[in-house]
């Protein structure tokens, strides 16, 4: 029998209601976008066609939703399931993150009523990284639904279906590793075609896919660590910190890889000096690097690593490091040329906050009603 349990408890708590209000405001502006056009709600323009709806909701949102990917990478490829207690919450967060990222992509789509054109093979342009992102993200959402299905089947007691699904599950788990590797790297490739508009410190050209995949894994691992620590705090489960520490070691490898590769690229491309130029880009670069190095410092020491609070700081820093890397490349230092500037409008920000609120609400409802969280390691 599964050691996972639904948390139970009231759903309509005060925080839940507050989230509900934020979500309602977001939905109100979303409706405006569909009735009056994007220009009335968002500040995107001719030089900045991609604002926070693309960059945060999709590019960063799916990165943050890489917990399931990061864990699948570790759990299924390298060992026999000793991290299983973490799998379901991570999968759930990934499913919600990707579903809302996909939804974000739809409402940011200027011609959303024609979205089906991207699934018609006759239209496919294989040169386009966007095609790859679109198709792979859509497929991956389906894969996540299938990976998460046992949780629901277990609840309704569909034993037969559960058994046959488990027989083929290995295939979907494999897809669940392959698809994010593909589309997360392609999210990086999007930057290549933007050429000079991407700041030299972030325009690594052919290295974009590699950096994108590592940043996805960094964010993924951070989310797994973050989530498990958080749900321990708020739901009072047994500390999973020793387990997390091992994951943290993998995170060290990723962080080192990212920082070292980043530096090597800048040296090869002869842009090392730009780090110290003292302008906005160089400051953002240093801030970003600091966020990558702080968790490295915490995770490298066994003593600090065993400390739940410090581990949490490391996780948050990792989360911000990957997010800032993507924000910097796609938006903060993006420069389409003279005459264009962008800062999101209040309504635009509310839509994004609304999406985040919906995601957290859905997470809370699901962990309270479905067997997602592991009751305790021995149970």
């Amino acid at each position: 029998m599964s050691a996972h349990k639904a948390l139970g408890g009231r759903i309509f708590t005060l925080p839940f209601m507050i989230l509900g209000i934020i979500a309602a405001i977001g939905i109100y502006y979303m409706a405006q976008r569909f009735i009056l056009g994007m220009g009335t709600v968002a500040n995107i323009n001719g030089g900045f066609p991609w604002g926070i709806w693309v960059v945060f909701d999709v590019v960063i949102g799916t990165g943050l939703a890489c917990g399931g990917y990061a864990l699948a990478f570790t759990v299924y490829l390298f060992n026999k399931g000793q991290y299983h207690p973490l799998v379901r919450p991570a999968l759930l967060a990934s499913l919600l993150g990707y579903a809302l990222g996909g939804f974000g992509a739809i409402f940011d789509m200027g011609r959303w009523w024609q979205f089906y054109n991207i699934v018609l093979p006759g239209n496919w342009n294989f040169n386009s990284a966007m095609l790859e992102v679109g198709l792979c993200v859509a497929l991956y959402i389906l894969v996540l639904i299938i990976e998460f299905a046992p949780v629901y089947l277990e609840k309704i007691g569909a034993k037969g279906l559960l058994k046959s699904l488990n027989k083929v599950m290995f295939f979907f788990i494999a897809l669940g590793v392959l698809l994010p590797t593909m589309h997360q790297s392609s999210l990086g490739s999007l930057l290549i075609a933007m050429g000079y508009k991407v700041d030299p410190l972030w325009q690594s050209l052919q290295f974009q896919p590699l950096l994108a995949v590592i940043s996805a894994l960094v964010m993924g691992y951070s989310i797994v660590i973050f989530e498990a620590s958080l749900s321990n705090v708020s739901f009072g489960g047994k500390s999973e910190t020793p387990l997390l520490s091992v994951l943290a070691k993998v995170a060290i490898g990723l962080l080192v890889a990212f920082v070292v590769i980043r530096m090597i690229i800048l040296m090869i491309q002869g842009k090392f000096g730009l780090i110290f130029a003292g302008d906005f880009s160089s400051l953002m670069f240093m801030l970003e690097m600091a966020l990558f190095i702080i968790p490295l410092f915490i995770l490298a020491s066994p003593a600090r690593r065993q400390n739940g609070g410090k581990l949490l700081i490391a996780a948050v820093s990792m989360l911000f490091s990957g997010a800032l890397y993507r924000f910097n490349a796609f938006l903060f230092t993006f420069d389409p040329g003279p005459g264009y500037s962008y800062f999101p409008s209040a309504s635009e920000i509310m839509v994004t906050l609304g999406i985040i609120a919906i995601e957290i609400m859905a997470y809370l409802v699901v962990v309270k009603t479905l067997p997602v969280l592991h009751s305790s390691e021995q149970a």
Partner: protein
Amino acid sequence: MKRREFLKKSLSTGTATLCTVAAAGSAEARENLKPKEDAIGMLYDSTLCVGCKACVYKCKEVNGMPPVQESEIYAWDEARDLSGDTMNVIKIYQDGTAAVKDSEVDGFAFEKRSCMHCVDPGCVSVCPVTAMRQDPITGIVTHHADVCIGCRNCMVGCPYNVPQFEYDDAFGQIIKCQMCNQKGVERIDKGMMTGCAEACPTGATLFGSRTELMAEAKRRMDLKAGEIYNYPRGDVRTPDSFHEKEVPEYKKHIWGETEAGGTNVLHISSVSFDKLGMPPLGDRSAASIAEGVQHSLYSYLALPAVALAGLAITVRRNTDDKEEEL
């Protein structure tokens, strides 16, 4: 598996995966696309432009678009930049007293902004649904709203920020100059010239084949400042008139000969192009680098298929019956 062993294995396998991605990623990208033999284009000579904006008006008329009004004076199209309402605009460069035409110091100059009809167009390369297409013969880049999903990748992928979206329309579309040859207009197919070239009173916007226009631009580069030259108007191959004018001090630079693979719309000027707002482009097109990476990574789905098989086997080996409840 022991923790240490697991770590070792995970790190080495992880590194191997990343190295594969890196190796594929740094593989040789494709070369720039080459100019088409019979490419159609335009030559814009900034020194001939008088800023009358007849071309802006004509472009709107041909394409059925509304004028932009910004002030109380209802006199002329006041579009300052490309937008969902404007495919062609004349911009101005000003310095100091702005007294002398075509002078970088204390002078002013005009610059036309419309699609450059790139030889290796970024907009075509990035569009997921092939809604941007380059004609295989004329090289004209057209947009097809019937398949466009509005992802606006063409906007970020265009080095000149040409494609614009109708943000103020709930059912908006991408707007860009299609060299007056889109369905329903088809001026080039009908043997006419572009609207802007036809309307231009001075021949600043000259129509023709890329080859002939390039030859004309090179001829002008070779002229000495102060000489008298007979400037053609209309179509460079069959000009409808000429006018004599003193040759200005041209910058020896034909914009569009090599920039990011070149363009079919060429510009020449007496003021350097960075001052006129042209982007900082090298010879390589970003599209050629992006496509090279995309192709070596995916080699038409062969690599992902192999990777999936490998992953499936590994996962299967690593999930024994006890864990199958998950």
